[in-house]
């Protein structure tokens, strides 16, 4: 497999106090997600990408903060908005682009696409296009980790819209009942597609986990330092056998529900969007902090951005040039 560029895999420091290098690795991962997503937007709007594209831009601190406390062997399950989780867990952008374009070189030989990328080597058990549908997989992975005694944990990413699914409640019950090492990460970006969650969700979602006696936290999802610390505590508890956790992070998606969702004013205002982008951007907040703490300087951050952009561009080009799967592939992999 041709690598588009040398990539720094996310370093899983799991340190309670990451050093400058570790913070910069996280920053780079956030930049990688944003840059990848901007390129996806371009591919999609220029009609080069089939299917649907649900952009994660604005939510990068959650994926990177959480995945940075995990090891490569730890599991994640993801959603229709899964590019960020996939990159944060260590995927290569060139192979991801190939999958998004339905090419043979893609993570799933072009059979999964944006909404189903799985990357077993990095513990990613797959994005999932069924809202709430992957909760069982995460709980099952945690179950096998507990039974096989391999010390792994599983993280289940989902949006607040999934709180409407009974399946999530059922799997949370199993996880808490059997003290399974699974972390439920609710990315509350406030909108279930085109409907504000207050119109769909009774009470505070986090209270449901509290009612089960589950370790529960509700935090700012735009500040990676908060996400990192919250996730670290939850993961360490789970590894010690103290059971699951429910983490709800408040966040915002800058773009529409999917790329085609352009006229959004009927469900959210331009002012609200502007406020988040200008005042709550996870990359800007992180950069400001790194600079204020003198952990880096602007030229280093600019360098990271330039390098990642180039890597992403090379990855996209690799995918555009890559061949489609052979037609004979259509009927392979139906059964193992």
């Amino acid at each position, binding site marked *: 497999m041709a690598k588009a560029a040398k990539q720094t895999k996310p370093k899983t420091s799991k340190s309670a106090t990451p050093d400058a290098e570790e913070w910069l690795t996280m920053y780079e991962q956030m930049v990688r997600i944003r840059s990848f997503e901007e390129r996806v937007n371009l591919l999609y709007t220029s009609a080069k990408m089939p299917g649907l594209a649900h952009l994660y831009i604005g939510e990068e601190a959650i994926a990177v903060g959480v995945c940075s406390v995990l090891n490569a062997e730890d*599991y994640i*399950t993801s959603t229709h908005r899964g590019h960020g989780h996939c990159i944060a867990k260590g995927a290569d952008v060139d192979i991801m682009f190939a999958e998004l374009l339905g090419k043979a070189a*893609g*993570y*799933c*030989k*072009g*059979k*999964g696409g944006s909404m*189903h990328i*799985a990357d*077993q080597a990095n513990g990613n*058990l*797959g994005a*999932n296009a*069924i809202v709430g*549908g*992957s*909760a*069982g*997989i*995460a*709980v*099952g*992975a*945690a*179950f*096998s*980790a507990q*039974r*096989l005694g391999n010390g792994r944990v*599983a993280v289940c990413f989902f949006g607040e819209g999934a709180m409407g699914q*009974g*399946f999530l409640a*059922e*799997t949370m*019950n*199993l996880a808490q*009942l059997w003290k399974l090492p699974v972390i439920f990460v609710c990315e509350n970006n406030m909108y279930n597609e085109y409907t504000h969650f207050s119109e769909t969700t009774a009470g505070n979602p986090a209270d449901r986990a509290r009612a089960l006696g589950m370790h529960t936290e509700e935090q700012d999802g735009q500040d990676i330092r908060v996400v990192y610390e919250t996730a670290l505590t939850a993961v360490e508890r789970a590894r010690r056998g103290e059971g699951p956790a429910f983490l709800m992070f408040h966040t915002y998606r800058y773009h529409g529900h999917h790329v085609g969702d352009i006229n959004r004013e009927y469900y959210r205002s331009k002012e609200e969007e502007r406020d988040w982008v200008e005042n709550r951007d996870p990359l800007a907040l992180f950069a400001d902090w790194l600079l204020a703490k003198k952990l880096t300087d602007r030229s280093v951050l600019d360098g990271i951005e330039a390098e990642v952009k180039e890597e992403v561009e090379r990855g996209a080009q690799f995918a555009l040039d890559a061949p489609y799967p052979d037609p004979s592939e259509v009927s*392979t*992999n*139906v*059964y*193992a």
Partner: protein
Amino acid sequence: MSTLSAEKTGVRVLTMGEAIREALAEELRRDPTVFVMGEDVAEAGTAFKVLLGLVDEFGPERVIDSPISEPGITGLGVGAAMTGMRPVIDIMFGDFITLTMDQMVNQAAKIHYMSGGKLKVPMVLRTTMGASRRSAAQHSQSLHAWFSHVPGLKVVVPSTPYDAKGLLKTAIRDDNPVAFFEDKMMYQLKGEVPEEEYTIPFGVADIKRPGTDITIVATSSMVQVSLAAAEMLAEIGIEAEVVDPRTTFPLDKEAIIESAKKTSRAIVVDEGYERYGVTAEIASVIADGAFYYLDAPVKRIGAMDVPIPFSPALEDLTVPTADTVVETAKALCGRN
């Protein structure tokens, strides 16, 4: 009825329930990654007592009582199967598979394909089928056609203790999601089961009774019904061949077509609803593969297209009987 009247000395005779329990016990003993999970599976040994005693040998860590949570435990099974275990998920009534549909159809069945062959889901969903227990509409259905419809799933419908044991062992060792349907009226059915280890491959039909005049393709309890019909037909000089596909997917098309070619007449009997059912699929296979050999159209016999009623006076009308099979066979053979 050679496989059923096994009263010869020296040959072991087990009930279907005992054969199933023995298969599970042997597999639990052989492979530490196998576990059984379901409602009341441990001390109670399931509602049908089929698993009685398993927990005594294997403990509650491997024979696990679950909450009443069919989607939850099925989803857990999918995730555990993807990460190194071989779950046997017990759904006490086949009617409740409607609750597992998303996990079976959208997750289990598709993960191998969508991941381009990277991920595997080696799990078994054990459940029941069949009417005639006066249990009414929500506890009497035979819904195996639903899973047979979906690429990625395999479906087993055993008709004898011998078959049930060998097929269940194969199911547990299979790397794909397998749905295993046991007719709840057949748990007391007796038959020969050898002491020594054996498995039965999927997709291989068994001729339960050879004949020359008409082919009766039958599944699960309908095999017993058809064997009884064949005895009655023999008395009036019609020799029926009873073919049991044993798995509705993979389906042994060749054996079915060969038999139809030999006899030139065919009836398909299955306890699922007649419309859009297993009988339609098999009838089409025969029409397609043996058209020029047929002396009459292929006939289908399934459950009546109504919710199964409670009253014995009504319920008995809905399920195929030996008399119905005899009448249909006589008509096809021009013997009315």
